[in-house]
């Protein structure tokens, strides 16, 4: 079957069997390997992508279900201008160790801040409750999302090290 969808702002299409999962369409057909396969049983959230802005487990969606939708993967977070606030947040607050859960965590965080720009710690913890980090770095993941919220609030996003360099270092 022919499927077409907007992936990170570009029109992408392919010819797939109905049984092909969205995560495999993204990774194999489109070579977007930032979306990870973790448990493959809808438990861990490593395969999280945004469909029309909402976080969804792409291992539990068929590619044909995403026909005509707008998909955001981790590759779509950065812009030509640089990393997104969420990515800077994870970088600066050490929101990752092995990095396997990170794409899913950042996408969930991004979707959360879209409708709740200043979440409490409790709200962040609920938002990421479907995403498992086996390094158990949850403390820093929560801090990273909180930091990203603060970065979004400030008018321009400047990574700390760039800001420090501009003022002559720390």
């Amino acid at each position, binding site marked *: 079957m022919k499927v077409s969808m907007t992936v990170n702002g570009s029109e992408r299409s392919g010819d797939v069997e109905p049984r092909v999962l969205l995560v495999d369409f993204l990774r194999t057909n489109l070579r977007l390997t930032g979306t990870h396969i973790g448990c493959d049983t809808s438990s861990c959230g490593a395969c999280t992508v945004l469909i029309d802005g909402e976080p969804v487990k792409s291992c539990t969606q068929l590619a044909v279900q995403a026909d005509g939708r707008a998909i955001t993967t981790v590759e779509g977070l950065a812009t030509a201008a640089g990393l997104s606030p969420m990515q800077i947040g994870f970088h600066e607050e050490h929101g990752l160790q092995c990095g396997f859960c990170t794409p899913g965590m950042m996408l969930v965080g991004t979707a959360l801040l879209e409708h709740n720009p200043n979440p409490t710690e409790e709200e962040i913890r609920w938002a990421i409750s*479907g995403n498992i980090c086996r390094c158990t770095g949850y403390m820093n993941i929560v801090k990273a999302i909180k930091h990203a919220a603060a970065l979004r609030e400030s008018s321009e996003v400047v990574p700390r090290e760039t800001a420090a360099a501009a003022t002559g270092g720390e």
Partner: protein
Amino acid sequence: MYPTAFDYRAPASLDETLSVLKERGDEAKVMAGGQSLIPLLKLRFARPELVVDIGRLPHLNAIGRDDGHLVIGALARHVDIENSPEVAASALMLAEAAHWIADPLVRNRGTLVGSVCHADPAGDWGSVILAMHADLVARSASGERVIHAADFFKGPFETALKPDEVVTGVRIPVGKGRGGGAYLKLERKVGDFATVAVAVHLHLDGNKVEAAGIGLTAVGPNNIKATEAEHFLRGKEPTDEVIAEAARIASDAAEPKDDIRGSAAYKKDVVRVFVQRGLKAAVARAKEGRS
């Protein structure tokens, strides 16, 4: 993991859906959000020849009021129910139950009606619709019929639905008198199935219980309606003693098995404690007019 190969249809209208099911209902599975069906397909527990994706049908995602009923369309997702002002105002228990289902990502895709039709004995919505005496509206090419929730569940993953039928929505009686409900769930972690959960709902007439509904999750071959406890409560003032006895009777209706989540005896006792707590919360909510 890949499902076995299947044909796929995504009808553009309900009429088209019904004619596809008339032709090939025996070999088909209907899919709404796919959050139960896709895992089954991947594990190859389900091997349908045809998947009928109703996810794009128009007008089926509505949550609204109609003639004393809260009507939940077949495509209303858990997240829609969780956040619906209509639900919060008329049937708080549904919002409470929605919040406990799976995790936020699954709730962005899964639907109440899909979950009910999947009929997992550990499914949360089955107990909610049993406790609230809901009706399911089933459509086929030959017409529409209403199935009472109490007649819907036939066993593990088995329902009264015929192969050519699709459930278009659930009708929940609300807004009559002073009603209140609660959903209580014990789970090991977010996203796990219930160890035990209970749904309770009641209406008060003055100081007495006019009608009660109790549904039990994950303690039998399907969601169980604790009918004897419901009858026991009717016409009685819900004192602590009456509630404790109703909870004991409800726990007798549970038929749990030993498994990794707990022993049968433990689960039976959780049913008793949760029904007791749930009834107290439901009475308080009914008195406060909080549905």
